[in-house]
C-alpha cells in the first residue's frame, strides 16, 4: 500500500474497530443519500421541463 494511504489509515487509528464501522456506515449511507438526492434532483428537473413545454 502507498505510504500516504498508510499514513491516513494510521491517523484514523485502524486499530480502533469503531473507525472501520463508522467509515463503512458513512460510505454506504452516504452513497444511499447521494443517490436519492441525485434521483430527486433529476426527476424535478425533467418534470419542470415537461411542465414548461405544455
Amino acid at each position, binding site marked *: 500500500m502507498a505510504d500516504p494511504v498508510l499514513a491516513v489509515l494510521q491517523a484514523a487509528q485502524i486499530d480502533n474497530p*469503531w473507525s*472501520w464501522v463508522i467509515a463503512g456506515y458513512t*460510505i*454506504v449511507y452516504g452513497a*444511499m443519500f447521494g443517490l436519492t438526492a441525485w434521483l430527486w434532483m433529476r426527476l424535478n428537473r*425533467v418534470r419542470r421541463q*415537461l411542465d414548461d413545454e405544455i
Partner: protein
Amino acid sequence: MTTDSETSTDPQAGHDGSGRTSTPVRKLDGIAVAGIVLAIVVAMTVPADKLQGDVQRLMYVHVPSAWVAFLAFGVTALSSIAWLRTHKVTWDTTAAASAFVGVFFTGTALASGMIWGKPTWGVFWTWDARLVSTALLFVIYLGYLALRRATPDPIDRARRSAIMGIIAALQVAVVYKSVDWWVTLHQQSSRNSIDPALRLSLWVSVLAFTIVYIGLTSRRRALLEAEESLRLRGLRGSAVAGDAISKPNLEARSDG
C-alpha cells in the same frame, strides 16, 4: 416462450406523460427514513460480536446490501419475463430501474465488504466467496446496463435487455454456486453462527434496506418514464421519417 401479440405497443402507454411520483411513494419515503434511523440505532447498540468485536457491526450494512442486490436482480429477471409475455412498457422500466438500483447496492456491498475485510483479514481484498461473487455480479449487471444504453430503439431495447435479464439471472445462480465450491476447495468458510440479538438487528437492517430499495426503484422508474415522455414530446413536432431529408440547397450558407 412465444410472443403472441404485440399489437398495442404504444410507447406512451404505461406512463401518464408527467412522470409524477405518486403519493404512496412519498409515504414510503417517510417509512424508509424511519427504518434507516432505526436500523442504525439498533446496529450501534446491540452487543458486540464475541469473536470479532465491534467490527462485526459492518455486517448490518454489508448483508442487507447484498440481499437487496439479489432482490433487485430477481425483480429484473421476473420483469424481463413479464415484458416478453405482455410487452407492457412498465415491465421494461421496472427491469431497468431495478437493475440500476441493484448495481448500486452491489457496489455498497462490495465497499462495505472490503472495509470489513481490512480489519478482520488484514487486506481490503481477499478471495472470499462472497466478495468474489459480488464483484462478478457487479460486472454482469454493468454489462446489462451497458446493453440498454447501447440500444437506441425503445422496443428493441426492451426485447434485447429482457433476453439478457434472463440470461444474467441464470449466470448469477451458476456463478454463486461455482465460486462457493471454488472457495471451499481453497479455504474453510469463515462464517460462524449468529447470536439471536444480532440476528434481530440484522433483520431490522434488511427490512429497512428493502424499503429503501422499493423507494429508489420507483423513483428511478419514474425518472426513466419522465425522460421518455420528454423525448416523445420533442419528437411530436416532427412528422414522419421522410421529413429527415429535405430538398438539397447548395446555395444555403450559414454565415454569422
